[in-house]
């Protein structure tokens, strides 16, 4: 297929999204400008409530910050894991691949319990710290931002690691040998050979982790708790408890818009890296 005709390949997904995503989204957008979900009368009330409130603006900022921190934390561990995977023998490779998908295989329902076990006042980390004599009293971890980020690091790591592994799988081992035999240091090999190949995977992973962590409603609610303030919980409350659907719609669209801006920036970066 020629460069000019290639766009047709994107058509099936685009059409499916039109019907099953964009159409409901438009209804949602219309609802946010209505007085109620029957769309009988129009009003800017929901948007005034959503954006005219410092509390909600703080929620947006907290949520974006959480997404960014989750990207950073997952990248710090996923990149070394991907490098070790690349250099490893077949057995270790298999072990890393299994570890990479494990978090996805434990349902979100049980995962919350596992994190209570690990982060709790009488949990694994606190027992270890106290056992080693590092702390004398339990350190609060559950229901803190650090605790939540640690949990998100595990939960979201597959989304960073899998695209990275897929991207690095294309590197020809001969290339690495060549770089090494030409006297290139490890650092130079990583920077000149590995990083350019890894970059599309890293950016793909960053986009997925950012989007997923920012909307991880259950983890935010259970592991983060009510003292941390993120937008998805507001959406849920307005939609399901207060039944203020216009406000829920406005908040949901605000969240989507702000996360998409970041995702689009990452996508641009990705395009630059790809065609550099």
């Amino acid at each position, binding site marked *: 297929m020629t460069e000019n005709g290639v766009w047709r390949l994107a058509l099936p997904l685009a059409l499916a999204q039109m019907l099953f995503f964009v159409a409901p*989204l438009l209804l949602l957008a219309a609802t946010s400008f209505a007085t109620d979900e029957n769309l009988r009368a129009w009003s800017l009330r929901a948007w005034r409530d959503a954006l005219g409130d410092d509390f909600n603006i703080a929620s947006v900022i907290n949520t974006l910050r959480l997404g960014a921190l989750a990207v950073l934390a997952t990248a710090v561990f996923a990149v070394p894991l991907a490098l070790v995977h690349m250099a490893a023998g077949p057995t270790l490779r298999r072990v890393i691949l299994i570890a990479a998908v494990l978090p996805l295989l434990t349902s979100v*329902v049980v995962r919350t319990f596992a994190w209570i076990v690990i982060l709790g006042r009488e949990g694994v980390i606190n027992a270890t710290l106290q056992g080693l004599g590092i702390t004398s009293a339990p350190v609060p971890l559950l229901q803190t931002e650090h605790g939540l980020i640690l949990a998100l690091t595990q939960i979201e790591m597959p989304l960073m690691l899998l695209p990275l592994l897929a991207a690095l799988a294309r590197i020809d081992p001969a290339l690495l040998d060549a770089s090494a035999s030409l006297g290139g240091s490890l650092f130079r090999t990583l920077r000149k050979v590995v990083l350019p190949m890894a970059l599309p995977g890293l950016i793909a992973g960053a986009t997925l982790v950012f989007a997923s962590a920012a909307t991880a409603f259950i983890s935010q609610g259970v592991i983060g708790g009510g003292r941390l303030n993120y937008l998805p919980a507001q959406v849920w409350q307005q939609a399901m408890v207060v039944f203020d659907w216009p406000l829920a719609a406005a908040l949901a669209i605000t969240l989507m818009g702000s996360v*998409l801006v970041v995702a689009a920036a990452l996508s641009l970066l990705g395009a630059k890296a790809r065609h550099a």
Partner: protein
Amino acid sequence: MHRFTGSDRALALLILALAGCGFLILVGPVIVVLVTSFTSSRALQFPPPGFTLQWYRELFDPARSAQIHIAAGNSLMVAVLTAVVATSLATAAALAITRSRAGWARVAEGGFMAPLVLPGIAFGLASLMFFSWLRQPPSLALLVAGHAMIAAPFALRTVGASAAGLDPALLESSAALGAGPWRTFRRVTLPLILPGVAAGAFLAFVSSLDNVPVSLFLASAQTDMLPIRMWGMMETALDVRVAAASGVLVAVAFVLLLAMDRAVGLARRMSG
């Protein structure tokens, strides 16, 4: 990466240390779940006071867990269909986007990610409102379509990352040798992007399997879904079977991975 100098060694150690920590973070909580699934206590408890296989027996008991089996069957079917639909649509789109340098491709790429960032509750609600308006009650097909919308961005991203390094010259030479586009895709493109396609299909599958908010609205009494059932079991009674269900999933994934390894190894030996 064979002859290490001093600074090389320091860097290698740092990489190994971080990878080790990363490994621990990945598997730690899963080990907690697996250990808990063998607890002899009657509610989820860690550390377990003793060990038993009772919860696995109960999970597989056709009478006591009948409803869980039905929900698991529904969830698996929806997840498989979602993975197939989402990965096919996304692979085609990813190829289009990576091969085009035009500005529209960047915009489309961002737009295609949108379903991932709309809170699930809002998407579920809006879908139900929209399809009720079209007089389409919740059904299996709608459920798959809803899940596929959320799952497609995963596949789009992973396939895109794999396809980014695709050499256009390779495709052109295949075409020049008289291969049609489908043949070129199957013989040249697909093998090269397979890791991305596999990762995408897997992510799509598990995202559907674990989806709560979209299922909440698009599932019906006829399509009881596993995660919603497990929420109830967890919330009211700390039912240990929810941990055992994760144990089963991990075991199945293990076996599948080993089987795939075997199959690939076998194929390699037979062709070589």
